[in-house]
């Protein structure tokens, strides 16, 4: 009779498998991080609400259908707008910046201006479609 001897299985076989599993874990953890939204918080005003602003404290910009920025009728770039807001904010603590947006303006242009207003910490910023809707970000709300 031939006696067979059981061979002991080696432990090292599954080492690569655990490496693979840990790589998958890292992948899923990274993917889970993609679900976080980043952006800007803004306050919606009540419908038909109005806010009184002194004429001197008001700085108005316009965005046309192509997304070009205008101030007092002339085209300006974002850097000029930034300088303008900074200069006026220094002398007018209650500065209110209003952005008039053409209905066809690409959303990116509006977002860029919102980002600028948030970066400059404008106390009162609002944007409005030329039809009349107003969106504000002021000290009263929880935005920013």
């Amino acid at each position: 009779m031939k006696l067979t001897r059981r061979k002991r299985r080696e432990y090292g076989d599954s080492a690569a498998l655990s490496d693979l599993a840990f790589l998958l874990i890292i992948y899923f953890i990274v993917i889970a991080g993609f679900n976080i939204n980043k952006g800007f918080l803004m306050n919606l005003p009540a419908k038909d609400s109005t806010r009184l602003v002194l004429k001197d404290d008001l700085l108005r910009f316009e965005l046309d259908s192509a997304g070009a920025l205008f101030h007092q009728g002339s085209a300006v770039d974002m850097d000029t707008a930034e300088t303008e807001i900074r200069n006026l904010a220094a002398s007018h603590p209650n500065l209110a910046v209003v952005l008039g947006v053409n209905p066809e303006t690409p959303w990116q242009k509006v977002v860029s201006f919102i980002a600028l207003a948030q970066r400059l910490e404008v106390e009162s910023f609002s944007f409005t479609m030329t039809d009349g809707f107003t969106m504000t970000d002021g000290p009263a709300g929880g935005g920013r």
Partner: protein
Amino acid sequence: MKITRNRQNFVVPMNAMSDVAFLLLIFIMLVALINYRREVKIDYPEAHDAKKTSAEKNMEIWVDSAGLTYLDGLPASLEAIEEAVTDAYRNAPGTRVHLIADRNTAFRRVNEVLSVLQLLEYRVVSFVVKDE
């Protein structure tokens, strides 16, 4: 006479390690499934200094470049969005509404959604961007 003993090579058993790894993997996959998020194919607007705006409960309203609206990744009319926002606000007033619009979407399309939110007196809205 010196007696030497044959020492066996020490092997670290890795089998248990792979078991732990796979259990962790299953756990993380399940969590990922719970957090599953439907995405609409859009070009995100880009901006500097974007802040994290996700809250504990979130609702996502998407507007694609053609102006079509989606609620949490599924096509939805403005009326459906209005209903969903009302329900969400009733059940969990702290629900954060995220507006995710394509960078090329005409402002009037975004404005339509904002008008609905304004009508419902929904106060804080997050405009989602891709951090540059």
